[in-house]
């Protein structure tokens, strides 16, 4: 059971890309190795080979364009889904990143350093900003993440469908404490 | 000499355009229009200098293309930077 919709979307897109990548690469690599093996020291006609390069190029461009743009189609769909800022979130949390910790501000104004408590199933909207340098707010389990940039507010929505303790980490080098810039989200 | 005349005429146009640019400041018109006109005038002046003084109009075509490619980069830079909010 996936911990939330953002992770669902991300993993299904990831699996799609992986299927395509593995299938195509295996095909190419098999041909590649076969040629290397078959024509080792081969002594037939060395100039011709009888390949129509133009045709090959055109076919390849068309095929790969179809593949890439269909992948892109799913990407844009997923992007709109995760980037759409919900109109009525259950809870709006302000996140202030600073060297080297996370501060959460609840809707009622209470501040909490390094831990956030949310009930399971709530639609949370994070308003993420930074008080000093560039950071990146990321929740690995949910595959949800957005930059914390000084002077601007970025939005990120998540829903925790499973109770538990989730780690938040910083994913943009922000100085000496970058490695330990973590927080916890406790879902009850 | 032909060039003397030609260059002087180009120079006169350049000076006149510059004066127009300065005069445009402070007249009562929508400010965007003023800005666009001024930048347009600057662009025309640049083309005149490049074309006549730098001889771009009389150079090999590919030098022009080469130069134009850097203009393409400028457009890419300025558009994405200014609007990539």
């Amino acid at each position, binding site marked *: 059971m996936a911990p939330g919709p953002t992770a669902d979307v991300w993993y299904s897109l990831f699996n799609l890309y992986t299927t395509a990548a593995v299938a195509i690469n295996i095909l190419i690599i098999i041909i*590649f190795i076969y040629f290397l093996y078959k024509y080792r020291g081969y002594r037939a006609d060395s100039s011709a*080979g009888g390949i129509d390069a133009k045709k090959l190029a055109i076919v390849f*461009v068309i095929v790969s364009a179809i593949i890439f743009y269909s992948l892109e189609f799913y*990407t844009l769909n997923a992007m709109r889904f995760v980037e759409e800022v919900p109109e009525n979130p259950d809870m709006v949390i302000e996140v202030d990143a600073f060297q080297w910790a996370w501060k959460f501000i609840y809707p009622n104004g209470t501040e909490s350093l390094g831990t956030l408590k949310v009930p399971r199933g709530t639609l949370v909207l994070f308003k993420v900003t930074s008080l000093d340098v560039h950071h990146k707010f990321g929740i690995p389990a949910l595959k949800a993440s*957005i930059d914390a940039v000084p002077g601007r507010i970025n939005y990120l929505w998540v829903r925790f469908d499973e109770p538990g303790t989730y780690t938040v980490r910083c*994913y943009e080098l922000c100085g000496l404490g970058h490695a330990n810039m973590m927080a916890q989200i406790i879902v009850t | 000499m032909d060039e003397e005349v030609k260059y002087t005429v180009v*120079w006169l146009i350049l000076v006149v355009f510059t004066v127009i640019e300065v005069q445009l400041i402070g007249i009562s018109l929508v400010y965007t229009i003023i800005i666009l006109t001024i930048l347009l005038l600057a662009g025309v002046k640049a083309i005149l200098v490049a074309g006549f*003084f730098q001889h771009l109009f009389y150079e090999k075509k590919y030098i022009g293309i080469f130069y134009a490619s850097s203009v393409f*980069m400028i457009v890419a830079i300025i558009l*994405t930077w200014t609007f990539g909010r």
Partner: protein
Amino acid sequence: MDEVSFIKKWLTTTNHKDIGILYTVTALYFLVVGGSLAVLFRIQLFQPLMDFLGPHKFNQAITLHGLIMVLWAVSPLAFGLANYFVPLQIGARDLAFPRLNAMSYWLYLFSGLLLVSSVFLPGGGPDVGWTYYAPLSTSKFSPQPGVTVAGLAIVMLAASVTLGTINFIVTIAKMRAPGMTWMRLPMFTWGILFTVALMLFAFPPLAAAVLLLAADRVFGAPFFSSPYGGAILWGHMFWFFGHPEVYVVLSPAYLLMMDIVATFSGRELVGKKYIIYSIFAAVVLSFVVYIHHMFTTGINPLVREVYSVTTETISIPFGVATLSVIATLYKGRIRLTTPMLFAVGSVFLFLIGGSTGVYLSSVALDHWFRGTYWVVGHFHYQLVGAGLMALFAGLYYYYPKMTGRMYNEKWGKIHFIISFISFNLLYFPMFLLYDMPRRIYTYQPETGWAPLNMVASIGGWIFAFSFLIMVVNFYRSLRIGAPAGENPWEADSLEWTIPSPPPEHDFDTIPTMSSVSADGGVETVEHVHFHSLMPFLISLSIFIAFVGLATSIVLTFIGLLVLFLTIANWYRTDILERFSTKEIEYEAYPFEGVVKEKLGVWVLVASETLLFASIIGAYLFLRVRTPGWPLSYTIHDLRIGLINTIILLTSSLTIALALAYVKHGEMGKFKASLFATFILGGLFIVIKGFEWSELASEGFIIGENLVASTYYIATGLHAAHVLAGLLGILYLIFKAYRGKFNSQKYVGVESIGIYWHFVDIVWLFLFPLFYLI
């Protein structure tokens, strides 16, 4: 040869083969430096909670590793081969401007030394990541001078690169042997041409970004510390350079790999024409994909969608090129020698790196991947796997040509097997670590990342060690290798038609081509290689001056003094035309009749255009975002601006006339016009200085606010260009008085004129942008 003349030879040489060797050896040296840093930080990451480097040293290690590998090691290694082989491949006896080439090398060497020496400054070297993200890299968060000094090293390298770019473009455009048409050029030369084209447009924005950062750090000019988008501005400026730069590293290697595959398949490359078109498309596209490094910054979704599509698109031409390589194997006569093994190995790794790049081009997937080890895995497969491995292939391939001896084939193959396996041990686990943040110096045991990191570290150490196999092999083979002969690989291109190692003058007669291989030769004027210590001295003095900035200002003065004297000496020798050579041009389409110097200036102008465009772009970026920016005409005295504009326009007129007069042989008027130009340019500077001091006395100083900072940076950079132009005009005046110009001989006037008009054009835009609107 005794010791003194040996040292003297290497310090003063301008021969492209010597410079090529210098580049190669220096690049390998920096490869070792960067690699050792990696060995160290892989120890730190070997286990959770290791206590080996600690955060400060770790951050310095990864920053220097990144900067060195991307800018000072892999790409210069390719340029070592390029210096050596591009002239040979096109049938020329040297590059277009040999002394500038030496200058590129020495600037490169000293910029690298400057970078490395920044570590010994108080507070250590740069520790902000090779991407130098602001505002972390501003003085508020990283006050140590090492960050500034490393920035200066980057600017110095950018200067080296710009000179190299001009040199290679002019060389390839103008110095091809008779019959060496564009389509007959070997792929490696094409790769270098694409690379220098990328560099030409990518490095000026980098230089601009670093200059702005330096102003921010030194004068407190709040460019990147601005709360209104300073951080984002750095992203734009850096990645506009950063994306093309990764292709700069890849292209020469990737196209060299194609030559090698063709040679060892015993046939021509399939669809060479289409490969060239494809790579050309990729080069153009590479300037409109860079936002994929900023997908998670939250900027305008439309911009990100467009750039996501362009990024997916750029994979297509690479696919075409890779497919052609595989098709070349079909019914070939394949010989799996060491170079061939490395070449096909690099294709494998390129496939994996490219596929993982496609994941990253997806905005939705990159939301997560950005900042994780997936990205690290991706780009190392590209830069090290596809890039460096192909350059290793190149080193093995060309070793016999450069030394005249064969390397040991068995050890070559062992090197390939060990490095290929350990490479994958090192980098493949990084894809599986897609939850682990990049650039963390430690991690907790409960993350479960330990086993994969252990594998990676072990792979890394083996990979680093395997490099030594090559070094030892090459070193020993210098003495005991079997003689190679002219063409050990039965390859086609011109470098294989001359002895190994090639004689000092390369070709006895200039080869002529009626197909891809040479079939004759033409006699030509004798070619002389000059020696000059000036490139070395100039670079050394800049190095000393920069070191002085961070340590003791006395050093800076000494550096500037030596610099001044050397340039004066350069002037003298040039005015006396000690170095003038006579080259005949053969295949020069599409630039027939355009003299080398003039083409060079055009190339320079194109790159300078980008420099100013970046500064203006940064200005507009900040201006549209910062609230309450006053209209320019309310701050500045319009009359002064107007007068200065007219002065500069008039100076353009006079230098245009000067050219017309010299062409008509009217020497009196010619000299008068030069003089007038010089006076007008000088007047412009004087008025500018007066204006600045007025403004400063009103409290309008550079660190005051963004309005002042952008104004001073833009007009200051422009004034520096006017000064450079004045130096040029002065040179013309000297030469004119020595009677070195006549109605047949006026390239200098034409070239410096083009530069002067360019400086004028820049002002035509600065004036409205900074004085009027």
